[in-house]
Each structure stands twice: as C-alpha cells, then as structure tokens.
C-alpha cells in the first residue's frame, strides 16, 4: 500500500494484518505525484513482494478546495492535479509493467469518477484528469493487450475527499468504501472476461448485482 501519510498508512497496514492473519501487508509512504517517488515505490515494492501482477491506482486529488471555477483556477493547480491523477498513474504503470510485459498477463485498475464523463461546474480540473486517465487505460489496453487495463467508477463514497468537495452532503446517502472495495475484488476476479480498456461502474459488481448476472 502506498500513501503520503506514514502514520495513517502504518495504522491501516496494521489493521489489515490483524484482520487477515497470514496476509503480507507492506506500507510505503510516498507521493505518486512526485516524479522522484515512482521508481522508489516500484523498486521497494518489488523488493518486498516480487513483481506486481495487479495494481490499483486509487490515489487522487481534487486540487484546491473549495473547488474554484476553471476560470479562477491557477494553471499550476491544474498541473498539480494532473501530476497526481494522470501523470502519476502513467509513470507508475510504466514502472510496474515490466514483468507483465514478458508474462503477457496482469491487471491495472484505475479509480475513475462520474466527473470523467459528465462536466460539472467547479469539477473541471478533477474531471479533466479523470477523463484523461480513463483514456490512458484505454490506450494502454489498445497497445498492450492481453495485459488488462480497466477504469472503475466507484460512485459517490463517504470519504474525506467527498467531504472536502461537498461538505453539505449527507453521509448516509453515500456509498461505503468497504462495499466499493468488495466490488473491486469481484472485478479483479472477472477481469479476464471484461473487454480490455472498459470503463466500469463499481455498483454493477455489488454482490447482489453480480448474483443477478448484471455484470456479465
């Protein structure tokens, strides 16, 4: 697991280790928006657990909050959002891809957003970065099939990021991150049967939906 805050990350790793005895969990405190960090992450991860076969890109930033209109957004802030949400996943994909290139198998999942498809006022920088990331996944898929590249829209989740963006939202109306994580596990299990480069909705892979065959 990779995140910027070492203390929270170490705590999350310890919690997983407690709940899933025998699981190997490692915490690496780095910022995917930092070019210097990318090969450090890839190298340290491969040293700890060997080559990756499944990678989930879930780090992202909204940029400045409250989110300004594009017309009020400094260019540097747009660049910073793209650095984390687009260039970071691009670089990290390249850095982790190596063994998958030779094995001709592997899976990259990119966490997307409704804002990648629909344009909302104030969501410009974030939406642009997520739309570009969706297309990054499609482009990788076109070039490197059968290695799989999928985008997943998790839906609105009760997270700190959502609270930063829409502090007035009622948390009860929002999805639970744990449920989205379960959907992502189902996507991973079914990845070989899903069109490469596809953009998926996590809700379609919720346990009940899958039983109904909606995901097929």
């Amino acid at each position, binding site marked *: 697991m990779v995140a910027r805050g070492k203390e929270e990350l170490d705590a999350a790793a310890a919690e997983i280790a407690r709940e899933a005895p025998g699981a190997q969990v*490692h915490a690496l*405190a780095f910022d995917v928006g930092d070019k210097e960090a990318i*090969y*450090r992450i890839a190298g340290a991860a491969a040293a700890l657990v*060997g*080559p990756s076969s499944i990678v989930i890109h879930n780090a992202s930033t909204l940029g400045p909050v409250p989110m300004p209109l594009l017309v009020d957004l400094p260019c540097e802030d747009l660049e910073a959002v793209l650095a984390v949400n687009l260039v970071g996943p691009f670089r990290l994909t390249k850095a982790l891809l190596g*063994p998958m290139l*030779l094995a001709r198998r592997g899976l990259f999942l990119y966490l997307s957003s409704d804002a990648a498809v629909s344009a909302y006022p104030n969501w410009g920088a974030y939406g642009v970065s997520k739309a570009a990331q969706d297309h990054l996944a499609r482009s990788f898929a076109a070039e490197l099939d059968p290695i799989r590249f999928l985008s997943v829209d998790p839906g609105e989740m009760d997270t700190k990021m959502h609270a930063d963006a829409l502090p007035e939202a009622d948390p009860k109306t929002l999805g639970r991150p744990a449920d989205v994580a379960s959907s992502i596990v189902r996507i991973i299990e079914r990845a070989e049967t899903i069109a490469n480069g596809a953009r998926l909705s996590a809700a379609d892979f919720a346990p009940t939906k899958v039983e109904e065959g909606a995901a097929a």
Partner: protein
Amino acid sequence: MNGALLPATEPRSAADVRILVLEASSEAMRVVPSSALPTLFRAGDVLVVNDAATLPASLSGRTERGESVELRLVAGAGERRWSVVLFGEGDHHTRTEDRPPPPELGEGDRIELGASLVATLVARRPESPRLVDVELTTGPATSAADVWAAIYRVGKPVQYAHVPRPLELWDVQNVYAGRPWALEMPSAGRVLTGAALRELGRRDVEVVSVTHAAGLSSTGDPALDALLPLPEQYEVLPETWEAIARARARGGRVVAIGTSAARALEGGARLGTRSGITDLRIGGSTRRAVVDAVLTGVHEVDTSHFALLSAFADRRLLLRAIEQASSQGLLGHEFGDACLVWGQPREKLATRRGEDASAEASTKVSSRGGSCLVPTETRGPRTTGATVHGL
C-alpha cells in the same frame, strides 16, 4: 591500438544505439541501427533477458567521527544484511581507482546515511579491507518496508566518472525490469524497447527472462577487481528452461541479452538449480552449454565482459571487431553501442577442444596477462539446461 573506444558520457535513447553484429564462424561483421534489432533473429529463436531492476546501490553518509564514506551494495547477505564496498571522500566524478580509501571502521561502527537509515558494520571480509558486511536499520522497530523505502530515498544508482551528470533511477531501468537485484544496470537491454518487443513477438521470436544480480564493474581495489565478477545470485524459472528446450527442438537459437543473462544461464545449467549463487566466470575455456549468441556492449580488451566474449569468438576476431567498432565511432560503456556476437556452434566448439579444453585454455589465459580472465569452470560432461533440469 586497442581500448581506444570512447565512452558514452550520458544516457542515450535506444534509437541512437548502433549494433555491431559479429558472426564467429564466418568472421562477418557489420554495423546496423538498433531499429534493425528484430530483423537480426529468425522465427523460433529465443531471447533471454535479465529482468533485474537496478538498485540505487550507492549510499553516502558519515561515520560517527564525521568522516565521509560511500557504501556500494555488493550482495544481499540475509535479512537487512548487505555486503558492501566502502569508498572514502568524493563521489562518482572521481575515477573509482583514484578515490581515497575509506576511513578505518571496526565492528559495531555506525554510518548515518540519511532518512534515518543507519549501516552498522557487522563483519569484515577477507577478500579486501574495503569489503565489509553491514546491517541496515531505520530505528528500533525497523520493518523491511522501512528499510527498503529508506534505501530508495537516499540511494543513487552506481555510476562512474565517464558519465558526469547524476543518474536518476529511471535512467538505469530496462522496460521489462522487475525485482531490484542488479547493482549496476544490465544495460544490454536498453535496445529492447516496447516497440522492439512487440516486433519480435510479431516475428515469432520468443522473449523470456532470468533474474540475475548483475554486480559492480569496478571497486577501486585492484585485488577485489581481479575477482570480478564476484559470485552472483540468479534465478531461472522452469518456464525459461522450457522455452529454451522448445526453441532447441524447432532449431531456434538461444540469445542472451547481456553478459549477466549469459552468466545466469550457463551458471544455472551447471548448478542445475532454479536459483542459487553462481561463481562461474565465463571465458575462452568455457564450453557453452546453453547460449548461442550474446548481445552486449562494446567492451574494451581485458575487461571481464570482453573475457566472456572469448567463449563465443576467438581473441583475434574480437580484437578486429573492436577496431571496427572504434573506426566506425561506436561508443563504449553502459550507455554506449551494442555488439551481437553469434558464437562458434556449441557442438563444434566442444568437439574441437575435447576433454583438454580447460588445460588448453588456462595456458592461453596466463599468456594474456589479463587480470580478469581466470576460468574456474570445472571439467565435466557437457550439460544443457534441458538435461540438467530433466526436461
């Protein structure tokens, strides 16, 4: 006359690399652009790359007395324990052999490396006063992840005086790199871009991998340099031996991408284990069991890389090739141009040399006076990867 190759002084794009192609049996040689790489092989051939990623193996710090010291990782020696070569004041801008010796250090001495990383000297090694074992920690409750993150935060790629600008980690990784085992870049792989791999696939040229802990090419201590390459860890998966056996069965040839891939294959075939540590030093007397050709850099005479090429073509032809390379302006060292050597057929080589191969070769070696070429291969029946691994 020899050794006049100019070094490449910075990382270059694969597109700028040229390849000197040398066929030992016909003595033919030509220079092609690296874009022609996929056309140099036939359908059914198999290329074997070393998929080791390159570590930031140079760690600089200070002793408790405040003296500057640089550690270069040599080999992992168990959990958090590394064999390292020590250097005194200075950095890569000074030629390795001109670096001052490291400060006096004894067991228990600590070197602060930054990012909370501390190296504690735990053992001296008999091979050289510069070679020691250290334990790396970041604090009382050091996790493996903490140590690796710290190594990656403070470490730099090992580099030499012919490349002045500091190298970044991304300058020294092959596109297919995975586990970080290499102390220096397995640089022959630089020409294998994503596009080249794709084109090789289209031409039914298979690409498989070994992992080999390619080591330091210079230590600044002549006694230690004479032992290079030191024993190195390798892993060759059964899938790779199977791919080699399939290639053989269809008449394909086995091409090692880099001297480290050649060492892993030949060393692994002799040890017969999936992974281990090989001390095989490939030279003129080595009867190749697996590898038909090697793609490597353009190496100066009397380096261990040059010695390895003697297992593929005789010295006279290799000297001609170096002259040719130099006259065509090919560049040497890790960011330089490349050389693909198709060896004498393996069978013929074995027949010609017969059982006296080792004795014959050691005479040759001593007459060369080179410091690096000391074959240690034991005599014995010729083995192949396939038979060793029971395929």
